[in-house]
Structure formats: structure tokens, C-alpha cells
């Protein structure tokens, strides 16, 4: 066992603004528990703010956990950010010496590795220039080369691998695999999922400071992708629909009294799955007799794309004269929108086209509700799902 994380919690206290007494708390990590065997490599993935960097900083010993503990054996070297603790006025070479010394390596140890470090970083022309003349990419190369050649027992790398150029990324991945063969344990976080899969045998998905998945690279990346798909389509509560027709003023000859979706009265958000039935009841009240009103239901994606709509006229339904209270029901046996959030826009109109273009509705609720369709990879990708089967004949 080279790294064991036991019941790890981390709370940040955000200092209150001047004049405000209350301190805000943020739990960055919640009850993490995992181990990495010697020579193993664990990749951490997750959205920004999911707690990846906090976890790596605690493992590196820079931050202290609020609760729980980290057990490591041997020497740990961490590269937690591109500048890696470098001093801007010292040369690249002096910085490597300093970094080695501060990580507890003797002067001779570091000196013996200097050529290999410089070679690997590809910075031989610049190594005797002060670090402030380096680009961010050059610093990353130097930082990773140094850490990777100090041959630590545990190497912690945060978000650095994906930052160098393509050639350096390849070389780094190769070096990381080499270190593993030598028995170094790796803990890596990156957004470059491809690299991660080639270096790590195991991935862990963090979400809001909790482990949401752990296992083989394919499995965890698939879970992550699904969550990203769903997350990317989120509509924040209260966000208005900016697409579609904006009625100038409802005439109120007829009004929508209530909306019931899948049996829920006036919901803010309705969660459903792709391909599940959808039933919308619009309870109306006609103040005076209204002839041939058109009921319309529309769906807009979070970015305003009009993805589906239908109305009574289009469906060939002659509504006739309506007066008093009643219910208009529209139902889909299998609603085929893919994962994401959609605005449900409902209205009652005097006719199909003219009133729609001028915006003169009897009543109109542009964002009556948010329809949240859950992720389902098997349903396909894009906007909509259709029943589909694959058949492959062996040649």
C-alpha cells in the first residue's frame, strides 16, 4: 500500500465580507475513502470545483484535512500548479536545484539528474536564463521533468499533463508509465481524459467533493460524459426563455388556470426519462364563449432551440365553442427528447398562425415548466431519440 485516504473531509471557511458577521462554509471534500497500491496509478476526473485540486493538495501535505487522514509511504513529490514553486529570478537550473533540495534531495542527487531533467524538458538553450523569461508551457515542462526525475515513491500531478504541447504530453505519459514500472505510485488529475486512460489503470470521478464513480477508465469516463451531457443542458431555476414568441399582451378572453404535467400540479421542474410518456393537462377558463381556440404546446432547449411543438389545429382537432372551465390534454406515449433541460411553453391562441406572428394570445405561459430529461446513453446522441435497432451480419 502506498497511498491510503481514510474518511477524508475538508471544509473551507470563506471569510465574510466586511461588516457581515456570518462566515460561509464550503465542504470541498466529503468522506473520501480510497487506496492506491504501490506502482498503481489513479486518475481523478471531475468538473471544475469538484474537489480534485483540494484532494491532491491534501495528499501532497500542503493542506490539512478537516477530518480523516492520508497515509503515504516513502517520498512524495507533487506538482500542483504550472509554476511549481519556482522562483522567478533564479535560472531554470538553480530552480531545479532548489526544488530538489526542498523536496529533501541532496545536492549531489539533484546534480546527478540535472542532465536528464534538462534533456527531458527540452529546455537546454534556456536552462540558464531566469525563470521569469519562461512561458507557462516551459515552466510546466521544467516542473514535470524535475518531479519525474527525482523518482519519488508517490508522484502527485495536478492539471499539468494537459498543459504542455502534444509532443511533451506524449513524452510525459511515457515517463509516467516508466515511473510506474519502477514502482512509483501516481495520483493524477487532468481534463485530458485520453492521456489519463493510457497512464492510469483506475479512474475516480469526483462531484461536489464526493466519489461518484471508481473503476476502469472506460466505465468512469462514460459516467462522467453522461453527467456532463446532463449538466451542460441545465436550465437554472428562474432563467427566462428568450426564444419563441413573446405575446404583446394576453387578451384574457380565455385564461390558463393551472397546468398539470405527468400528474403534478403546476410543477417548476418535471423529471422524466427519454422515451417515457408525457401528459400535459391545461385547465382553462373561457370568460365568454370562444370559438375555435387553438391550444399549443412547445419545447425549447436551454439555449433557445425550438425542438418540438404541436397544436390542436395542426393535429386536426376542431375545438368548437368553449365556455367556462375545462381541461385540454395533450399526451405523448413516448416522449423522445434526449438528456437535458427543456422549457415547456403553453398557450391558448385565437388561431394557428396570424395571432402567433403578432403575439396576440388569449393566454401564454412561455416557460410554464422545466422538463428535465435524464441521461440515457443507449437512447443515442443529439437532440431526439427514435426507436432503433442495430444488426450486424458477420462477413
Amino acid at each position, binding site marked *: 500500500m502506498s497511498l491510503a485516504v481514510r474518511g477524508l473531509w475538508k471544509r*473551507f471557511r470563506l471569510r465574510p465580507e466586511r461588516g457581515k458577521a456570518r462566515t460561509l462554509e464550503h465542504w470541498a471534500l466529503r468522506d473520501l475513502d480510497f487506496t492506491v497500491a504501490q506502482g498503481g496509478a489513479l486518475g481523478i476526473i471531475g468538473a471544475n470545483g469538484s474537489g480534485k485540486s483540494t484532494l491532491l*493538495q491534501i495528499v*501532497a*501535505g*500542503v*493542506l*490539512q484535512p478537516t477530518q480523516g487522514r492520508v497515509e503515504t509511504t516513502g517520498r512524495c513529490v*507533487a506538482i*500542483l*500548479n504550472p*509554476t*511549481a*514553486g*519556482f*522562483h522567478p*529570478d*533564479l*535560472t531554470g537550473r*538553480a530552480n531545479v536545484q*532548489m*526544488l530538489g*533540495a*526542498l*523536496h*529533501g534531495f541532496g545536492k549531489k542527487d539533484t546534480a546527478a539528474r540535472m542532465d536528464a531533467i534538462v534533456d527531458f524538458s527540452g529546455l537546454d538553450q534556456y536552462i540558464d536564463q*531566469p525563470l521569469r523569461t519562461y512561458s507557462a508551457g516551459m515552466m510546466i515542462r521544467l516542473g514535470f521533468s524535475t518531479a519525474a526525475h527525482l523518482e519519488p515513491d508517490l508522484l502527485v500531478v495536478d492539471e499539468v499533463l494537459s498543459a504542455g504541447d502534444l509532443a511533451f504530453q506524449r513524452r510525459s505519459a511515457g515517463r509516467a508509465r516508466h515511473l510506474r514500472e519502477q514502482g512509483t505510485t501516481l495520483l493524477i488529475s487532468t481534463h485530458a481524459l485520453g492521456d489519463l486512460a493510457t497512464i492510469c489503470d483506475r479512474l475516480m470521478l469526483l462531484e461536489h467533493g464526493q466519489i461518484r464513480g471508481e473503476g476502469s477508465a472506460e466505465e468512469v469516463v462514460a459516467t462522467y460524459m453522461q453527467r456532463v451531457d446532463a449538466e451542460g443542458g441545465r436550465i437554472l431555476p428562474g432563467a427566462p426563455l428568450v426564444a419563441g414568441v413573446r405575446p404583446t399582451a394576453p387578451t384574457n378572453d380565455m385564461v390558463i388556470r393551472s397546468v398539470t404535467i405527468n400528474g403534478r400540479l403546476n410543477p417548476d421542474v418535471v423529471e422524466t426519462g427519454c422515451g417515457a410518456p408525457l401528459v400535459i393537462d391545461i385547465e382553462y377558463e373561457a370568460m365568454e364563449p370562444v370559438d375555435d381556440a387553438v391550444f399549443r404546446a412547445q419545447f425549447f432547449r436551454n439555449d433557445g432551440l425550438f425542438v418540438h411543438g404541436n397544436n390542436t389545429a395542426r393535429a386536426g382537432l376542431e375545438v368548437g365553442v368553449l365556455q367556462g372551465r375545462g381541461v385540454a390534454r395533450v399526451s405523448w406515449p413516448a416522449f423522445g427528447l434526449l438528456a437535458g433541460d427543456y422549457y415547456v411553453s403553453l398557450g391558448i391562441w385565437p388561431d394557428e398562425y396570424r395571432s402567433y406572428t403578432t403575439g396576440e394570445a388569449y393566454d401564454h405561459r412561455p416557460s410554464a415548466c422545466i422538463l428535465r430529461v435524464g441521461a440515457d446513453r443507449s437512447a443515442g446522441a443529439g437532440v431526439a431519440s427514435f426507436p432503433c435497432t442495430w444488426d450486424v451480419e458477420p462477413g
Partner: protein
Amino acid sequence: MRVAARRWFRLLGHLSWWDLVAQYFGSWVGLLWNVVLPGVVIVVYLAVFELSPRFQFGGWDAVGGYGVNLVAALLPWLLFQEGVARAASSFVDQRHLLTQIPIPAALFPLANVVSALVRHLAGLAILAAILLGSGINTGLHWGGLLVVLPIALLLTSGAALVFASLTALHRDVAPTIGAAMLPIFFTTPVIYPAHIVPETLRVIMDLNPLTPVVTAYRDLLVTGRVPMPGGLLWSTAVGAVLLAIGVVLVRRIGPELAERLG
């Protein structure tokens, strides 16, 4: 335990070395600035005050001119002032390391003290050469520094740890210390001997733990007299209390430093 202590001292050595090097890195004189700068201070003060007979060091038993008496007391003062002032902001200055590498926090202010000590030793060597050259030789009294210098270091390190920690809690501490140095300087008998100051100031000067230290330096290096042990005991006691408070503060604040400064 022994391994931990060895690693601790090795890291202190590294940090002090990089502190000496990094300040003047890339300059032509480089590391030697650590000798040149105290040298210039000593030579200028001596030149101004020693070559003009109008300046008199107001003591009935004073040996040497105003210049040597001033410089002998100025060196321990500079050790204290430089060590404490730089250490006060050391956590903030070194946050690029604190947030990257797990290093015991106390080492950063202490490294500032060590590099101030190096410059202090260089200054002492230069002063010794000048004193010998001008015929002031207190002989074995120099050995007294083996007792007085550690007391000066104790005071400096204690204050360094205390103010570095307090600066991490409150950014206003470091500039306050910078501003406080001038009044402290004038309540320390560096540019005038203690017995010529007015009674009210005298009380403060007697309580000032630096007073016995700078007086002892002057006694040992110029006058050729054994310092009063009572005063030095007071300095040691204050230094020990400062160091104890400093250690407690750093232990409490150290683990949170990366979070506070990051």
C-alpha cells in the same frame, strides 16, 4: 526523531542559502553583496563619525571615537531589525513555496534570521579588521560574543516567529513592525549611550531587551569590559518567552498557512 531533526536542519540550511542567493541572483557581484553591503555601512559610518573630531561619544569612560562605538552597537541592531522585518512578511513572500511543497512553516522566518546572521558575521569580521587596524584590541573579550550573539539570535528568532505568524493572520502586522522599528531604534542605545538620555526615556530603554545586547557588544568589542549579567539575563528571559510564543503560534497557524495564503 533524529531523522526528522536532520531533515529540518538541512531544509533550514537550504532555505537560508537560497535566501542569500536569490536576493542578488543575476547581479554581477552576486553572493558577495552579503559582505559588501554591511561593509559599506560600517565604512561610511566610521568615515563620517570617526574622521570628524566634533562628534564625541558622551561617556566618561568611553574608549575609541564616536564611529566605532556606534558601529559596534549598530551590528546587533541590524541583525535584529533585518531579521525581524524580513521574517514578518516571510509567509506572505514565500507563499509560492508554502502552497506547493510541505515544508515546516517555522523554517521560512528562521531562514531570514540565518541569512541576517551571515551578513552580521561578515560585518563583525570587517569591524574586527578595522578595530585591530586602529589599535583597539579587546583581546579575549571577543569571546564574550559566544554568549551575547546567541542571546541576540534568541530575541531575533522569537520576534521573527511571532510577527511572521501574526502577519499571516493580519496583513497589517508587517508594515506596523516596519514602522515600529524606528521608535525601537531610538529607545535602544545605539547612537547614544544609555546614561545621557532623559529619565522618562531611560525607563523604556532599561526595559528594552535589546539594550543589554547592544551595550554588551560595545563593552566587548570597544571598551574591553565584561558586560553586566543582570541585563543579559533579562534579554534572555524576554527572548525565551518570545520564542515560546512564536513556536506556539507557528504550530497553530502553520498547518493552515497554505489555505490562508493560497
